[in-house]
């Protein structure tokens, strides 16, 4: 048994350079897949993190149209509505356009009730007390090196002018994967200013977020809300937070799907090259298999030997890929975090690694192994002479 194992490893790594390259190409293919999958997951992360008990209500024409603030009280009266908050996409620019981050004007009491943000109590209180203040996510604060008490100026794109905020608190995510790179300030602050400079845009909000008391009530509540405002000047479209988030993702889905498809094909080809190499190294040694047969190895044993050899190579690639996935994903996550705030590895990827490398190993070995097992000894030996 030990002798056979020794034979196995000696065979597998007989040509060190080739074995190394084969392992490397399996590794690269798996890593490419892992990275790609994590990237695509990150794209959908916003939808993943949404709660089944939250609804988003917006103007049915499109998101760029607001809803009257007066809807708040009407929505509140609908049965099943537990909590409500509202806000507007502010779209301000911090110094330069490339510093993009999401900034919202929100009604804070309801917002903190609906979302599980962690903010130190005294910071939260300071934010709630001061209407000119704002809270920012942990990552955003790190990115710009802000400190509590700093004055942050945003240049409005939707609401003209320069807007100043005092950073009162830093939030981080609680138990759910919430985006830690957003910026929130008081909707009241925005509204007071609008009343002076653009009265026709005051008392309007971009969206309502509604907490429903039971998850199975969401459909009914959403329908009830839309029914209430049907045939009014601002008809609403209410959907679960998940489908709201997904509607953003599906807008750019064409590109994502194309990337996914092409990448899978490339990975398959890399795998095929690796499998071809493994098969080649078995074919080259037809004579040796004949010698082993002469020594008394049965065809089944030969098949097992060849299969095992190929699996060793493929699984070595899998192990290296697994080890490299962690540093790779964290490096990419850090580079991309301004674009894709939630970039996290899923455990399923490793199951895929294992399955894929096993498959490559078996596919590469199966035909040459059967041939080596069947080839008549005399013929095989004659070939090397």
């Amino acid at each position, binding site marked *: 048994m030990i002798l056979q194992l020794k034979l196995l490893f000696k065979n597998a790594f007989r*040509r060190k350079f080739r074995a190394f390259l084969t392992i490397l190409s399996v590794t690269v293919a798996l890593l490419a897949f892992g*990275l790609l999958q994590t990237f695509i997951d990150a794209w959908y992360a916003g939808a993943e993190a949404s709660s089944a008990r939250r609804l988003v209500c917006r103007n049915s024409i499109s998101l760029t149209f607001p809803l009257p603030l007066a809807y708040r009280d009407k929505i509140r009266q609908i049965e099943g509505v537990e909590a409500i908050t509202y806000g507007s996409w502010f779209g301000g620019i911090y110094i330069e356009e490339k510093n993009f981050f999401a900034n919202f004007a929100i009604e804070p009491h309801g917002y903190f009730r609906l979302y599980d943000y962690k903010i130190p109590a005294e910071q939260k209180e300071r934010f709630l007390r001061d209407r000119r203040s704002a809270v920012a996510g942990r990552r955003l604060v790190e990115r710009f090196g802000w400190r509590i008490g700093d004055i942050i100026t945003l240049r409005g794109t939707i609401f*003209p002018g320069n807007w100043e905020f005092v950073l009162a608190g830093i939030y981080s995510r609680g138990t759910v994967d919430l985006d830690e790179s957003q910026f929130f300030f008081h909707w009241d602050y925005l509204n007071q200013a609008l009343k002076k400079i653009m009265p026709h845009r005051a008392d309007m909000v971009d969206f309502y977020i509604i907490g429903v008391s039971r998850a199975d009530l969401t459909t009914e509540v959403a329908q009830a809300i839309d029914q209430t405002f049907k045939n009014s*000047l601002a008809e609403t479209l209410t959907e679960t937070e998940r489908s709201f988030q997904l509607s953003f993702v599906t807008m750019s*889905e*064409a590109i994502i799907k194309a990337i996914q498809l*092409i990448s899978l094909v*490339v990975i398959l080809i890399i795998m095929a090259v690796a499998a071809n190499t493994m098969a080649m190294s078995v074919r080259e040694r037809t004579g040796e298999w004949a010698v082993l047969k002469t020594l008394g190895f049965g065809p089944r044993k030969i098949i097992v030997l060849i299969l095992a050899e190929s699996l060793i190579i493929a699984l070595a690639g899998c192990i290296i890929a697994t080890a490299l996935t962690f540093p790779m994903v964290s490096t990419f996550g850090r580079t991309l975090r301004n674009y894709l705030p939630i970039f996290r590895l899923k455990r399923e990827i490793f199951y895929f690694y294992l399955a894929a490398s096993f498959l490559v190993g078996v596919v590469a070995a199966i035909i040459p192994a059967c041939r080596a097992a069947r080839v008549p000894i005399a013929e095989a030996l004659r070939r090397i002479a």
Partner: protein
Amino acid sequence: MLSAILLSYSFRNLMARRLTTILTSLGMALVVFVLASSLMLAEGLEKTLVETGSADNVVVIRKGATTEVLSGITREQAAIVETQPEIALGAEGQPLLAREVVVLITLQRRGSDKQSNVVIRGGREQSLRLRPKVKLVEGRLPRPATAEIIVGKNIARRFKGCGLGETLRLGLREWRVCGLFDAGNSGFSSEIWADVDQLMQAFRRPVYSSIIFRLNKASEFERLKADIETNPRLTLEVKREAEYYAEQSKWMAKFLRILGASLTVIFSLGAVIGAIITMNSAVATRTREIGTLRALGFRRRDILLAFLLEAALLGFLGGLVGLFLASFLQLVTISTTNFQTFSELTFSFALSVKIACQALAFSLIMGLGGGLFPAFKACGMNIAEALRAG
């Protein structure tokens, strides 16, 4: 003469191991395909938006607004802008100027429950005169002061309620599609057009989004820009239409290029490894041949060249196949949301000479990268040992 022999030697060697050659080249072909297609996508996006704007037209939007959708211009401001003497006059002596409203509406795609944001533009007949690319292809133009719309060909095909004779419900009114227009390969083909006053009334919008006009003389642009932007009663920004649209592709084109480049780099690693494996085994199985060639009087340099040539050929072959496949993408149009404007835009992959050269150069580099090490190994062989090898 010698190089001709080497070339045919390299070429025949590739032919001799067809399966391996095909697999390796295919790997490289796909990497080149990925590179070319992402560059073509970014190019196509830019081309579409550059073609949308005309160099003679000027766009005025609110200061700080990055797009027409975010902009707002009051009637008073519009009236002031209209008095600028630099604005060209049309045949009937009216200024070639249009006050327009641009809003986003959410529409349902045909054949699925997915939604997208589409631009609806409210204008007047001058809007058409300012955009000669926009041509009615079916139906008729909207009658003034009615809830009739004309729809760009890319939108009519893709969205529910947008075909000729169909109706859209917006702002408590039914809007009838009375015509379809084609604006060639420009962003207008992804828009819906309506009467500006009807639209403002329906959406209860008191302000315009933008003012578009033509200049008498293109050279007067700078003066006009300074005039309007320094006027304290106007908080407006003046841009050439061509520049305004070109800017809208910047962010997304950059995103597509970065994405394509990262994918290409990762995959090219795999393809280069494939090439190394192939070339390495080519050298290993031909040790005796190499010895024979050396014994015949071929120098080390020739051997190096032969194997590098073989590797380059392998890469180039892949490059050609990849580019050939990618060139078919020009027939494909992509319809997706431009993040910068948050609206649907249809554009196609565009191949340029520059992209073709980049892709082929990259395939050569990949091939040579794969062949370098094995080629040196081959040329470093000792004649006697090589001849003795199995």
